[in-house]
């Protein structure tokens, strides 16, 4: 492998010696140009596909069991088959990557935009549609520019637009970008945003995009990484693809590791082969914990996923196995935290994200996440009440009823609750806020309790648990959020 023009990992990508499907051009400094793309077998898959029947292309993807890389891990080929025979129909590329900790799609868009475009065109061809919308997160300015440039080149060279490569196939790709909302990463909210509305999720059912999507027409929403796999699969065939990864989850996937490891970054790994231990401690990958510290916990699939601990280090990185272990592979965002981490603060930090990013559409998420944040902030500030811990869990159960997914804790004889959670909300954002709370309280309850006694000396005494509490609100007159003090009522 030519690594002479290796790009340092400041941009987030770390080369490793494993198989490469989607990151094969990342080591070239000019990987985003049409020249480099064409020189490295680019658009060969498209030319091949144009000689095939659309259904054959669809079959190839189905056979390869290409799993969606956006979070749910649903087979793309099967999803494509859900579209009723209604035209017009659309392909929407979800490039609104904003899950906390995730930054793999950004690299795919910045470093290999042509690979994505080729994947889009092949998909459009396979599904018999002629308009693809590429929705890129608002904050990703460089990705937008690179894609715009790539699209211009691809249009000029006849890979996109009218009469692609001289055939009578015509497909347009429309680049558009968001206005900075996390929830627009959810496919129905993305569609709303694309239609020019406020980005708020639609209820499924009845608004499954494959049937009633963009402009109420059949719409496939695919993740950037999912589509980036397609040219390789076409060129090398489904069998070659299946040689990588596990039987259930063939191929590779990109994981974005951040946190307290020596070498954080994006790695392309074989699904179901590499374990978290390999990833964190392997020389090819993260090369161990920072300062040789002990691992405290890690988030395996983005901020929405329940936390894992050292017991889960040997779980292979593969969707169904992670789900069974009580979390989700999600978008492959892994956040590693070592022993110096304050579990309450980490929990507060993640919950605050969801509270701030709740779209405000449905009640449990809008009110529940903010309430959770306020309680956690209060606990963190040393104003917690003992009953707050169970209150947090109960609020969680009102957003996500039933047992919330959580990892096993062998030491205490606690078993795993498999993913996914139930929800009283429209979309999974609300339940996502419950993940850090459930995970942190189950494992580190003592840290929460410790915060309650660790109060500055001049603070009034806390009442013992179990007695009646009455809230005394301290309003500052300007309507600013302020802490609430608990006071005893002497009857």
């Amino acid at each position: 492998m030519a690594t002479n023009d290796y790009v340092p990992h400041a941009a987030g990508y770390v080369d490793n010696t494993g198989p490469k499907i989607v990151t094969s051009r990342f080591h070239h400094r000019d990987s985003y140009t049409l020249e480099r793309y064409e020189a490295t077998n680019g658009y060969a898959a498209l030319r091949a596909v144009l000689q095939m029947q659309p259904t054959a292309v669809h079959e190839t993807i189905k056979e390869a069991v290409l799993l969606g890389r956006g979070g749910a891990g649903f087979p793309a080929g099967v999803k494509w088959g859900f579209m009723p025979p209604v035209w017009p129909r659309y392909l929407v590329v979800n490039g609104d990557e904003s899950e906390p900790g995730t930054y793999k799609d950004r690299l795919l868009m910045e470093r290999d935009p042509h690979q994505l475009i080729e994947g889009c065109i092949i998909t459009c061809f396979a599904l018999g549609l002629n308009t693809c919308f590429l929705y890129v997160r608002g904050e990703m300015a460089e990705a937008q520019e690179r894609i715009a440039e790539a699209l211009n080149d691809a249009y000029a060279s006849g890979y996109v637009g009218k009469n692609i490569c001289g055939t009578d196939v015509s497909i347009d790709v429309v680049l558009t970008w968001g206005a900075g909302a996390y929830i627009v990463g959810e496919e129905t909210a993305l569609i709303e945003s694309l239609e020019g509305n406020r980005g708020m999720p639609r209820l499924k059912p009845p608004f499954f995009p494959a049937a009633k999507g963009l402009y109420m027409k059949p719409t496939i929403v695919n993740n950037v990484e999912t589509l980036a796999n397609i040219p390789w699969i076409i060129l090398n065939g489904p069998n070659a693809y299946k040689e990588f990864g596990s039987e259930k989850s063939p191929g590779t996937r990109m994981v974005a590791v951040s946190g307290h490891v020596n070498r954080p970054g994006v790695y392309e790994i074989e699904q179901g082969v590499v374990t978290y231990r390999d990833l964190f401690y392997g020389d090819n990958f993260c090369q161990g914990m920072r300062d040789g510290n002990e691992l405290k916990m890690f988030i395996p699939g983005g901020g929405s996923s329940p936390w894992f601990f050292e017991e889960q280090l040997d779980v292979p990185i593969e969707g169904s196995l992670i789900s069974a272990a009580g979390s989700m592979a999600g978008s492959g965002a892994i956040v590693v935290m070592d022993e110096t981490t304050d579990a309450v603060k980490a929990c507060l930090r993640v919950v605050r994200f969801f509270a701030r990013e709740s779209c405000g559409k449905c009640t449990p998420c809008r009110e529940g996440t903010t309430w959770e944040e306020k309680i956690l902030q209060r606990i963190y500030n040393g104003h917690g009440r003992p009953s707050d811990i169970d209150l947090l869990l109960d609020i969680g159960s009102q957003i996500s009823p039933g047992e919330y997914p959580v990892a096993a804790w062998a030491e205490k004889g606690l078993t795993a609750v498999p993913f996914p959670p139930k929800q009283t909300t429209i979309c999974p954002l609300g339940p996502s806020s419950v993940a850090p709370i459930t995970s942190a309280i189950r494992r580190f309850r003592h840290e929460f309790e410790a915060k309650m006694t660790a109060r500055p000396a001049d603070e009034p005494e806390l009442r013992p648990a179990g007695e009646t509490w009455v809230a005394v609100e301290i309003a500052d007159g300007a309507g600013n959020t302020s802490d609430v003090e608990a006071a005893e009522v002497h009857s």
Partner: protein
Amino acid sequence: MTSVEPTEAVTGIPFVLNGTAVEANEGELLIEACERNGVHIPRFCYHNRMKPVGMCRMCLVEVDGGRGPALQPSCMLPVTPDMKVETESEPTKKAQDGVLEFLLANHPLDCPVCDKGGECPLQDNAYAFGAGETRFVEEKRHYEKPIPISDLVQLDRERCILCDRCTRFASEVADDPLIHFIDRGSQTQVNTFPDHPFSSYFSGNTVQICPVGALTATPYRFKARPWDLDAIESTAAADTSGARVVLQASQNELVRTLGVDSEAVNWSWLSDKDRFYYEATNSPDRVTEPLIRDGGELKPTRWGNAMRAAARALRIDPERVAAIGGARLTLESQYAWAKLLKGVLGTDHVDAQLGDSLPAALTLGLPRTTIAEACAPGQIIVLMGPDPKEVAPTLYIRLRHAVVEDGATLIEITPRATSLSKYATLRLQTAPGTVGQVLSALADGQLDTNVGTVQAPELERAHQLLTGDRQVSVVFGRANLAESARYSADALGGMRRLVPNAGYLPLLRRSNIHGALEMGLTPGFLPGGARNRGGLVDKWPSTPEFEGHDTDAILKAAAQGEIDTLVLLGADPLGDFPDSTLAEAAFANIKTLIAVDGLLNTSSARATIVLPAALFGEEDGTFCNLEGRLSPIRAKVTPPGLARPDWVIAADLSHAIGPELGYTTLEELRSQMRATVPALDDVDWDEIDGADDGPLFRPERNWELEFGDPAQMPPTSSYGYRLVVDHKLWDLGTMSQHSASLANLAGPAVLRLSPNDIQLLDLADRQQVTVDLGEESWELPFVADPQVAPRTAWIPARLPGFDVRELLSAGRSITNLRLRTGEVPADVE
């Protein structure tokens, strides 16, 4: 969960509700199916007249559709066969309690000073299902307390539970998307766009559908406690659509109007005029005792004196007596006055319309359809009249819904674009004076040449649509006061020939105008729409011996000294008749002016005798809407002072003149009407009172409608701008002006021009345009308005600033204006 009584029989899809096998209708939402089967599911965002959004999550129930029980919002879920639904299971209760707790978490507990307190769904649900104590000890969310989002509506964002009802209503129903969610997370709030108030004609509906006290109506704020209100169902009388309402009064004063869901008419929606103009009845300007002019001044007198004076003035040659107005009256009062004027006095100079409409024969003679039939899915609706949003806002909501949601096709044949134009499949832009020839060409199949401003391909397309196999409904009226009504009548003649089986909905101004026309308050007709020489001769003392004048001719005759006594039944010819010069000349020559009204207007202020009448909400009676549908008008408060219902005044006046009208109670009056008008024979007034959708009053006509040859188009003038004049909802009308909250809503009179013409006239950087008509010139402010067609100028009537009637003359077939910047001398005309 509270039990409610099942309302109608169920058939169709079997499902299991709390262990009991029940049935749902095809496609019915679970929340509705449960309601019909006696189980009420609490809800906030769901409203049966809007699309469900499933946002509040209050209606979550446990549903097992075959893949195990899961919580689903029942407002979004159509019932599927054999679905198992648990509305009282533990998971359901836990979810609903949770949602309620979340909603209350940040909701201010200012219920004691909240207008919604006592009728608040949030209060009710908290009372029924709430935990009783709060676990939320954090500081609540704070916003500035109520901010006015329009002249009529205040928004308290702290109370808002973000159910999306008001915002959905604004964008989906009213099509005024002026309020929206802003910010996100728990800071999400409803608000207007900066500098764009929620100035919708329908803003009051958002107050009614708000499930908390977040939206309150300025006129009602802090007026009454809901449990003190006394209510009665009635009919709104601000326009001809006949929307059903509940009138609510406190201490013998009307304080609020709410919309009632009538399937046939208003679907629970009201215009703000319908909703708030009850304020006029509480006006301090009400006439509370009879007045008589003495030494140039109106002075209070006793009923007896006033009656004697009026009787003296009326006991003259019937050809010298005339009456204008009557649309404000109830059907019963209209009958009583028709009998007094035509049967007792023998005059036929009676007209309830004020020269701003179409000949009564058209309204009475064209086959009527209903709103529901016109709005049925897949039908064709033709609009040949004024903008429905301005004239009958409730009808506008139904028409818009039909086109946007139910696939009805709208064809617009109007001189200016209307609020519905953006939904029209085809729009024929008929310059003033051309519509008659356009329809004539369509009826004759002459589709290969342009007619006026309408191009041949448009004619072809219109012909194709109208002669297809889809039912055609025509909504018609007077689209332009500045062109002769003749052209509109010709157009209807053309439509009759083109689509013989089309149904018609007349779009007239003035509340109960249809009742007035049906009861004979129009020249040439007797009650039941019978011609003067009809079958009433033996039931009334007499009938007119001559064919009377319409308002136009009455005023002309009066101006020539041929009318001595003029009766005004709530009409204001000086303020409302399109030719103000003629009205003024007529008034100068009338000897005795008798005004029967509850409020003095420009005309009645000049009366010799004023007889104080009961107004809306003060008398019982019947309303006849544009479909001919009868619905109750009910009294909730007593008339102020000595004011009386109009039918009582008619009877007393007749007594003072001599002959009796033959009734002493409303019941006796109604039996007399039944005996006189065959079509009323089987009308049961008790049933009208109880029904959501009243019966249709469709008398058989003993005459045929005839149309002459269409008038030729007026010649095109190379410099002329053809004037379009019509009415806006908010104007200087008497009732609006006496309603404190509505009085200031009428915008200034501004000349409206198409943006392109503004360029052509080189007006872009000017404030005013010079208007030449005949010898006279005016300097008028103007704005660019894309609703205006090229080479036309639109000025709405009866607005403050400029009385457009200065430009109108009853004799002109069209009104051609010359427009110019100030400097250029007028060289032609």
